[in-house]
């Protein structure tokens, strides 16, 4: 079975600074990988996803993520954060065979300071 680890529970960055959120997964092959964002009191919105091909994936709101097979990682990055990026971020993994469930990490809460 697959699993996901988001090692950072809470990250604080200054507005305009760069951001990297970490995600490590455990799966026997190359999985499907996702990043979702959840604003306070809202549901989850898809930021980006990796299925195959180019390991650097571009998403919405200026985010990108890089799949590194050797490190079993799929870290999310943004070169310059905005106050509106304050939210909770979830990494998720899906198996390429079998059912279409996703396994989610425990989330990283991002705080932006002026």
């Amino acid at each position, binding site marked *: 079975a697959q699993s996901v680890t988001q090692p950072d*529970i809470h990250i604080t960055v200054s507005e305009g600074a760069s951001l990297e959120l970490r995600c490590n997964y455990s799966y026997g092959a190359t999985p*499907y990988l*996702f990043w*979702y964002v959840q604003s306070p*009191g*809202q*549901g*989850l*919105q*898809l930021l980006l*996803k990796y299925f195959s091909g180019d390991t650097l994936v571009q998403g919405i709101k200026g985010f990108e993520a890089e799949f590194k097979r050797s490190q079993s990682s799929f870290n999310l990055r943004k070169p310059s954060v905005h106050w509106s990026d304050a939210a909770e971020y*979830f990494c998720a993994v*899906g198996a*390429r065979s079998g*059912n*279409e*469930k*996703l396994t*989610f*990490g*425990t*989330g990283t809460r991002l705080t932006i300071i002026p």
Partner: protein
Amino acid sequence: DVKVTQSSRYLVKRTGEKVFLECVQDMDHENMFWYRQDPGLGLRLIYFSYDVKMKEKGDIPEGYSVSREKKERFSLILESASTNQTSMYLCASSLSGGSHTQYFGPGTRLTVL
């Protein structure tokens, strides 16, 4: 755009009550999911359904049941609500066929007193 709606944003119930949470999607998706979200635990899958009248248990099905009589609607039922079921409940749907991309509703925050 995919739209997933949930019947209530906030719900307050008493211990022992039967509670129904409704979810409707408008994109003809085969797969539907119910999660609960608790601080520090992320999203945990309660049940999912891959077709009408079909369901499978997720990671934490105890105390819950589900119903899917129509393709667009997936209901979560708490037969006898307990205080430890106070949580945020999220519904999602996805198209069958390998995309795995799930679309989420806004969530229902349930408080059981």
